[in-house]
């Protein structure tokens, strides 16, 4: 697996946005990015012409500045967007946006007969179609798109495998049918259904689905040369809260990473794994209580995507879901208690955490690994050359292992008194969703602690991950090995 070009491009755009921000003339330089990236005379890499490429880049920049591309009227100058971003008070609660110019590239999901069709006598395709969508013209079958409902029965029965289906990768990737191409051929997100798992971001080969970045909201608190007049508040205490999945996402270890993050302009860094230590303790107690009361099982509750899923698609599971708060909740609370004036920024592997942050007053902003990575590059920070800086409070083995599938269950098991039989949901997909639905309905499942992680492999498989899960697993394992077991006094002193 190599990094996808579409993702590469997104990162390139982010780096340019950050460089423009710190350039001393943000408003002018932001406008020039599409022209700098696709100067006159340059060979066109992906699309029909340079103008189209610039148009797509412009849309990516709009998302990078934190706005919905869908609302763009094409006449608005990028520098106006930049101005608006600087004066924005709170980012949007709908974290995703789709670049129409990029999205147009793929066709709507449809079933069609290829010229492999032999015009056979059996005509199974016609027989199985319940919608009368298969016609026969010159002896060969043809599908009437107006009647076809994409049930794919004909695909399954054709003895020549002559019937093909084009798929729409974002629709395929979405586990809850929340993204669909509309009549005009543009994908749209239905926020009533969307659980913000970000699988469509990774799934779209055109890189059309973007997170609306909160980068500018964070950067405007950095010392940048911009002043209050530009809508920025300089000299604030800005604290980065790094998710447990961060080990392996960047070169070097998490101690070098702390120095690197501080070099970008943050004032301090805390491990969210410290918050995980509190989650583990509370969740173990809650688990024992529930088991004592005879509950058939309990599910974890730290995955923001799973919480969205439960709220929007499976309210019946709520009574089985632990009420313990997330690692981010606890660490943000502690940090705000200690530094009431500080701005807290969660450094996240996924889009779903944005919604958690949006409703938690202790978490001011969220940026993801790609965005932090772009910040390192834009600021020319060489992490491997950074010295190691210790954390004020070191997290436990168990807390640091939280981001790997089955890590949460193992952590709770290490403290709970009731013997744990874990049932691991390693990624929400159609199949695992069915097993959760069944568990809610029948009030039983093959285990007493159900760990649910929306992404395959756990948080290290989040949409903004920079490295392959295997590499992340290795790095986390190495960190866990040098960490201490969780104890009663772990985490005291934050």
């Amino acid at each position, binding site marked *: *697996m*190599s*990094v996808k070009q579409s993702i590469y491009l997104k990162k390139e755009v982010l780096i340019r946005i950050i460089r423009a921000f710190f350039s001393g003339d943000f408003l002018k330089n932001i406008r020039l990015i599409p022209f700098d990236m696709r100067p006159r005379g340059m060979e066109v890499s992906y699309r029909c012409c340079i103008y189209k490429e610039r148009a797509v880049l412009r849309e990516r920049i709009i998302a990078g500045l934190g706005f919905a591309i869908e609302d763009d009227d094409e006449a608005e100058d990028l520098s106006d967007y930049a101005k608006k971003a600087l004066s924005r008070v709170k980012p949007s609660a709908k974290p995703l946006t789709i670049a129409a110019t990029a999205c147009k590239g793929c066709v709507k999901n449809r079933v069609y007969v290829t010229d492999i069709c032999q015009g056979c006598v059996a005509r199974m395709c016609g027989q199985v179609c319940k919608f009368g969508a298969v016609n026969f013209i010159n002896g060969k079958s043809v599908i009437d798109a107006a009647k076809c409902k994409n049930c794919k029965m004909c695909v399954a029965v054709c003895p020549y495998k002559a019937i093909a289906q084009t798929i729409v990768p974002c629709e395929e990737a979405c586990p809850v049918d929340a993204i669909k191409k509309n009549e005009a051929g543009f994908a749209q997100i239905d926020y009533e259904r969307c659980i913000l798992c970000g699988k469509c971001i990774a799934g779209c080969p055109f890189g059309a689905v973007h997170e609306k970045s909160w980068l500018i909201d964070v950067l405007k608190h950095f010392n940048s040369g911009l002043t209050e007049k530009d809508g920025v508040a300089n000299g604030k205490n800005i604290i980065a809260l790094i998710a447990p999945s961060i080990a392996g*996402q960047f070169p070097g270890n998490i101690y070098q990473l702390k120095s690197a993050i501080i070099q970008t302009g943050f004032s301090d860094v805390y491990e969210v794994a410290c918050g995980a230590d509190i989650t583990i303790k509370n969740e173990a107690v809650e688990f024992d209580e529930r088991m004592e009361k005879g509950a058939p099982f309990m599910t974890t509750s730290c995955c923001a995507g799973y919480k969205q899923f439960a709220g929007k698609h499976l309210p019946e599971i709520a009574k089985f879901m632990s009420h313990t708060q997330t690692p981010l909740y606890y660490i943000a609370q502690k940090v705000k208690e200690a530094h009431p004036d500080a701005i807290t920024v969660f450094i996240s592997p996924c889009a779903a955490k944005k919604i958690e942050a949006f409703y938690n007053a202790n978490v001011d902003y969220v940026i993801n690994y790609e965005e932090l*990575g772009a910040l390192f590059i834009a600021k020319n920070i060489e992490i*491997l050359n950074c010295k190691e800086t210790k954390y004020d409070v070191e997290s436990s083995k168990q807390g640091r292992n939280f981001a790997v599938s089955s890590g949460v269950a193992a952590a709770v098991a290490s403290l709970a008194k009731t013997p744990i039989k874990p049932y691991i949901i390693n990624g929400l997909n159609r199949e695992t969703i069915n097993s959760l639905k069944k568990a809610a309905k029948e009030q039983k499942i093959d285990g007493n602690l159900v760990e649910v992680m929306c992404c395959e492999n756990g948080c290290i498989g989040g949409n903004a991950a*920079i490295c392959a899960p295997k*590499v992340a697993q290795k790095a986390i394992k190495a960190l866990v090995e040098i960490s201490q077991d969780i104890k009663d006094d772990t985490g005291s002193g934050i």
Partner: protein
Amino acid sequence: MKTIEVKICLGTSCYIMGSSYLQELADIMPSKFSGRVNIIGHNCLGQCMSQGEKSNPPYVQIDDEILDGATIEKVLEYIEKKL
């Protein structure tokens, strides 16, 4: 027998722009190359800075040649050619 040295740049810019994935190379090396390719991770090869605007990470150094925009496929192809 000739062996080839493949240095994967694990500097910040290369890592974030894709060399994190190149770390898999060692695991997927075709058996025909076994024992003939020496893969090592390396600090910033200096290309990201010296190439400035034109820089095209990730970089991989194969013996003394520099490969830009490196992907697993590109590196394997290069090794094939060299051996």
